[in-house]
């Protein structure tokens, strides 16, 4: 395996996502206990949910940006992660029949970057003013946007099934979206329980 092959790069990019998942999961409290002295916001569930979701959204944003870069690089004629195996992002991202949003013609890579920018805005603004009046509506917006993402994920999984190839970068972006659904759902639950402001 090359030091900087596509799989290694992806593995580095999803480290924040994995950390974020651990923070928003039930294991988050015990996992962050050792770090909470250095990072006090991790002491509360609200802080862990926000930081964890931000890590996931940041990772998703980088992975989505990478899919656009791959798309451009394939267009130049180079292969970034071409493989004859089932796992091949070049074959998926480079497939003109499936790499654009039906009817809109917009590349799925662009959609990924835009939606993850939106998630970043939602989470960063809530993190900045966690007790503001609009926090509940921002959490709702994030939850609705990430839930709508399921439609895109199902369609893209269908496309991958048709192409008989799986794109690891796209899959990482999809997993990030699914984790954010859980993150926003947990935040909404915490807010509605009244515990949000106490923290």
């Amino acid at each position, binding site marked *: 395996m090359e030091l900087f092959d596509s799989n290694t790069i992806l593995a580095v990019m999803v480290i924040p996502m994995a950390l974020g998942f651990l923070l928003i999961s039930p294991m988050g409290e015990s996992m962050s206990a050792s770090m909470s002295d250095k990072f006090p916001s991790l002491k509360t569930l609200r802080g862990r949910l926000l930081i964890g979701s931000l890590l996931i959204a940041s990772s998703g944003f980088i992975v989505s940006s990478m899919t656009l870069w791959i798309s451009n690089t394939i*267009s130049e*004629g180079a292969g970034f992660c071409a493989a004859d195996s089932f796992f091949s992002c070049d074959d998926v991202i480079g497939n*003109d029949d499936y790499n654009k949003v039906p009817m809109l013609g917009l590349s799925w890579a662009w959609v990924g*970057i835009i939606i993850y*920018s939106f998630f*970043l805005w939602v989470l*960063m*603004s809530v993190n900045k*003013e966690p007790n503001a009046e*609009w926090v509940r509506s921002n959490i709702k917006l994030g939850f609705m946007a990430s839930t709508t993402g399921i439609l895109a994920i199902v369609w893209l999984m269908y496309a991958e099934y048709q192409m008989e190839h799986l794109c690891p970068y796209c899959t990482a972006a999809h997993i990030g979206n699914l984790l954010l659904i859980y993150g926003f759902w947990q935040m909404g639950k915490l807010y509605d329980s009244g515990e949000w402001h106490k923290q």
Partner: protein
Amino acid sequence: MKIKYDDNADARMDTALTVIAIFIGAIMVISLTSSPIITGTKEGDRAPNITGKAYNGSGWQDFDLSTYYDFDWSLGDNNTTDSQWVMIEFLDTDCPYCFNSAQEYQEASQYFTPTNLESPWNGPHVNFIASAAELTGLKGHDSSRDEIEAFRDKTTGESCNSGNVDCSERDGGPFQIPFIDDLDKSHMTKWGIGGTPTYFLIQPDGIIAWSSFDNQDEKFYDAINRIVPQINPQDGE
């Protein structure tokens, strides 16, 4: 009118500016480290891929145009074994002009190959390909795979040229090149081609170097002679 005043609006606005900055930064990095080439059929575009079935004389086999490409190729590399060019013709076996010009395409397909010792061509190998469509709606234009086979192999029993002439009566010899099945015109539609014959010369890296659509006064074989780099005999190999 009641004016709403929101003390917290600046937090969202500040964040929006930060995210926009991150977004623009990411796009700038992508733009600076890659330069996309549009997939299309104009000169300089990346040729849309063609996959499907092609008849090669012995049967209908899987075909994938991208397998002809060498993405590491550059214009300075005219190695006869590594850098193979592609000439593709979109035709209809019932199109009179395609029928009448079949001989020159067939002869050119044998001329532009360095392995043909009888040919004076000293450039890289040019892979000739034909994509046969059925131009529905025109009188006598009802084609089939049998007709494509007869047109390619010059065999009897099928009517070409608007259904008026037996396919075996066309000028020139049998083709030795693959004929792609495009009877449903899906490839023609994908390439945005309105009529036949239309020719494209594709570089070894999959970029369209010439098209008859953009160069109506130039014959396809003149274009090959003009564009494909030939090896200077003094340089040797």
